[in-house]
């Protein structure tokens, strides 16, 4: 087990470098002189020159990257250009909670719905329930998130006035309102994620149900429910958990759209705004955070594997 974790850890470090380097290069490759962008529209020549000095844009790119790395290791991610030179770390701190909360609720919803749905579809294969849930999954997968978002806003928010259509209130300020505001965005994000999970679970549960040990368990006289819980689920969950890990990435990406539509000041919107305004320090900071979060989540998932599959736990 320790060796297993160590391996994963070793892979994580080059990933961080690779991804941050990639984004660094991309931001530097943007057409136009970055110093001009950063200095703003009314800048004079000397303004531009001083901006160039300030952001070290006159140095060769690899040097810039190393400088950024060094600063980052000390917890300094530079200053945001858009937000009045606020330290990027401050901006990130403000935003990360919103996105984390959104992501968490989304995961909660999608996992808690997809597991029963997937198992049901597999168990009652080829019946109405199976077809219904598979079709539902297909629909959810195909509906673009922004269309769903607007539909939800339109129907639930404006037409029936059940829930507030958009906005955000920090959790600590008012938990009730915060949660009410989070429902629609989370549902939007969760629907596509749900679809993928349900389908995979259905496939894996079907495979497991065909296994001999399930037949043995039933022959022993165990009720289907016990069989499902003790034998089937643990085995079927392994590929499922993989999918969850992969979906974290798409949830983070989808958050960009959802946050934009619902007006939630989170990391997704920050990324979009940063990219649109060529705010390099912010973009790099966001990327770093996203990669770290992703790696942490995947490590957790690997740990979950070890829990679910004793073979992994006992071998490495």
């Amino acid at each position: 087990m320790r060796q297993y974790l160590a391996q994963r850890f070793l892979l994580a470090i080059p990933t961080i470098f690779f991804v941050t380097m990639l984004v660094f290069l991309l931001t530097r490759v943007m057409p136009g002189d970055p110093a001009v962008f950063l200095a703003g529209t009314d800048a004079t020549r000397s303004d531009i020159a001083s901006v160039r000095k300030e952001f070290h844009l006159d140095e060769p790119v690899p040097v810039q990257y190393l400088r950024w790395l060094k600063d980052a290791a000390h917890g300094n991610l530079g200053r945001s250009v858009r937000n009045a030179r606020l330290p990027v770390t401050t901006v990130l701190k403000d935003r990360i909670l919103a996105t984390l909360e959104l992501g968490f609720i989304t995961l909660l919803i999608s996992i808690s719905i997809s597991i029963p749905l997937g198992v049901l579809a597999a168990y009652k294969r080829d019946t109405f329930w199976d077809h219904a849930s598979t079709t539902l999954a297909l629909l959810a997968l195909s509906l673009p998130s922004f269309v769903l978002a607007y539909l939800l806003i339109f129907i639930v928010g404006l037409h029936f006035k059940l829930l507030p259509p958009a906005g955000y209130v920090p959790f600590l300020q008012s938990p009730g309102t915060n949660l009410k505001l989070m429902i629609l965005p989370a549902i939007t994000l969760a629907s596509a994620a749900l679809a993928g999970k349900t389908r995979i679970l259905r496939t894996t549960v079907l495979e497991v149900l065909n296994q001999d040990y399930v037949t043995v368990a039933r022959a022993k006289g165990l009720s289907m429910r016990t069989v499902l819980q003790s034998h089937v689920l643990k085995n079927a969950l392994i590929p499922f958990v993989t999918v969850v890990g992969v979906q974290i990435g798409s949830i983070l990406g989808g958050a960009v759209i959802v946050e934009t539509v619902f007006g939630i000041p989170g990391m997704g919107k920050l990324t979009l705004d940063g990219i649109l305004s060529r705010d390099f320090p912010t973009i790099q900071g966001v990327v770093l955070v996203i990669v770290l979060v992703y790696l942490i989540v995947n490590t957790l998932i690997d740990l979950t594997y070890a829990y679910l599959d004793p073979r992994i736990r006992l071998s490495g």
Partner: protein
Amino acid sequence: MGGAVVLILVILAIGAPVIAPYSPYKADFNGAKNAPSWHHLLGQDQIGRDLLSRAMYGARTALYVGSLVVTIAVTLGVLVGTVGGLAGGWTDRLIGAVVDMTFAFPSLVLALAVTAALGPSLTTLMIAIGATSWPGLSRVVRSAVFKTKSRDFVTSARATGAGPVRVAVRHVLPNVVPEIIVLASLLSATAVLAEASLSFLGLGAKPPTPSWGLGVSDGQPFLEHQPWIALVPGGFVFITVMAFNVLGDGIRDVLDPRLRNR
């Protein structure tokens, strides 16, 4: 059945300039924001353009993007996957590590970054989506290659002296093709969705290019009273994506039982 819908869409897209009742660019301020009527089957948008025509032209954009993306991704994916699968050893592991690292990143964010770096336009969009999709493809290709590699006819081909390239092209690839077709179809679905999303965010097609994603974002201020402006293009995205998904699933189902019955 998904194939039927896809076919209709393709015909619409190609034939749009001929069939479309109105030019998608012609504004008609008198008729702005009209609800669907006999003259304009799907209504008009905020500057009076016929929504049906814009939707049809939007199909062109979507399918254009989709097919290019799939081509790029499939080419790269097949190349990398085959090389990795056949070479084995540390070449394979190196490639695998790079693929895994690309996977580590939320694709939309990476696509955003690429689009931002190269300037928002349809071309950059395609590069971005293609660049984020090929790793997934290469993985599948690689495992398919592994499966085929050990089968008898490959061994016999090599035994008779066929060089690695010939083995790859004539023997391994044809067996990998069905899987690729399934993936291509599903990838088209993702590509259309991605195009719509990126255009929606303002990072893809620029106005007045008819694009479904752009149409939805255009329609946003009018949601309350004239929802069709946003929902028509949105609906088209939905139908298209679903069609590709159904098509891909259908092909996969056809392939699977056949393989099992052998």
